[in-house]
């Protein structure tokens, strides 16, 4: 009988040790920030001449017509003989 009480005690003891405590988080409903009073710490730097690099515009030139030879005319002249 004592053994049975011991087992029951161990079983319930283990159950209690695994059970987690329930955490309830509470948020502030309203928060007021005064931006006027805020201060930013740092140093203001003006960019020098060399620091600005404008992107060079790429020029796409179209290949315009150019006569390479007069082979068509050479053939045509013979075809126009007879």
């Amino acid at each position, binding site marked *: 009988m004592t053994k049975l009480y011991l087992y029951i005690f161990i079983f319930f003891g283990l159950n209690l040790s695994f059970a987690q405590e329930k955490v309830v988080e509470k948020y502030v409903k309203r928060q007021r920030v005064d931006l006027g009073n805020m201060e930013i710490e740092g140093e203001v730097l003006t960019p020098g001449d060399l620091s600005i690099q404008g992107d060079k*515009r790429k*020029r*796409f*030139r*179209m290949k*315009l*017509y150019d*006569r*390479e*030879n*007069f*082979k068509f*005319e*050479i*053939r045509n*002249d*013979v*075809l*126009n*003989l*007879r």
Partner: protein
Amino acid sequence: MKTYLILILFISSSFQGYSQEEKKEKKAKSTTKLFYKKAVKHYRNKSYNLSLYFLFSLIKKNNGVSKKENKLLTRLLSQTGTLPLYLYDPELLEQINNPYISLHLANHYFKKKDYKKSMAYASSVPDSNKFYPEARLIIGSTLQLKNDPKFKSYLKQCIKSAHKKSSGAFAKKFKLYYDLIRENCQINYARELYSKDKYARSNAIYTDIPKTAFSWPYLLLEKAWNYYHLKDYNRSLGLLMTYESPLLSSYFLPEAEILKALNYYNLCLYNDTAILIEKFFKVYKQRSLNLRSFVKKNKDPEYYFNFIDKKLSNKLNNSYVKSLKNQLKKKLKINLHYGSFKKTRKEYQRLKAKGASKRDLEFLEFTMKKMKQRIGRHVQEYFYYFINQINFVASEMFNIRLEVISRKKDLLYNDKTLVAKRARGSLENVNRSADEFFFTFKGAFWADELGDYSFGLKSNCKEVDKNNKE
């Protein structure tokens, strides 16, 4: 006894066979004689096409040609020209060793791009023959197309022989023919120099060709290309402006419009380029569309033959049609072939009036029909070529227009402008070499200066700040 009988039977049968062969031979000889007789008879009656028909029937039957027949063939072809040869099978013609036939076959295979055969037939024309310069031109041109440097010697032979034959020719038409062949050979030299970037030397050869030459109007464009590459845009524009003169109004060459636009573009005269392109799309494109619809409607080659043979009706008052007709009438091929056709028509009319046999008349009708088709097809091809040219020029003009817009946009983005809105002409901007004319217009005939025009436009390519300008 039995053996004797068999022997007699065998001998008699063999004699019978021999006599049958003899009969056939006799018959063949008699038809050969008949054909030849008929050919001679028609030749004497000046019915050259009919005579040619009987002579070719004879050659086909005999699978060859005798010396006597060949002589007759030469006489006949000197009267008919080479146009009737298109009626006969080239395989039959290949059996005949005759300069007229060789020249015809050289042209036939050149057209088919069988250059090996074309050169072989052209080479068989002896130097004593009247067609020698033309045959040399065919060989020279073929080698030039194949980038073979040997072409030079053939062109030299062509120029030399054509010059010699021209000075010895009594008839004006022969003189014109030899001059045309010589000019063609000279022009091919100039074209070769152009392809090798030797523009100044090329121009010197073009300048040698007289303004009275048939090919001269076409050379203006080629010469203008030389000046364009030499960066003498003013001279190039001046040459192209020659086409605007009343004497050359029938020579509308679409490619000249591209070159004009390119010249203005390279002088940075963007507004002038844009105006020229606009004019092209407004005027010429519409006219070419009309021509295209007309060509689509009429596909019968005989219809196109009438352009050469008859006066243009009022319905065809398209300026391109007029221009093409005038250009075609000055082509050697059309002149020779149309001359052959007219002779055949006369032959037909004469025989019809005499009451010739139905068979003979039908043959001549057939010959005329084939001749009409051949000439008409050539006219038709020329029309198609012209329409294709217009389409090609339109696409190139569009590219130039895009470039002009792009350049103008660049100026705007960079806050710049060109030095002048419109560069005015000045004599200071005209370049002139020692062999180029300068007309003071004192006692000169107004057409003398054709082909010697030059613009005096200043290059507008200098960019300046917009603010400075204002």
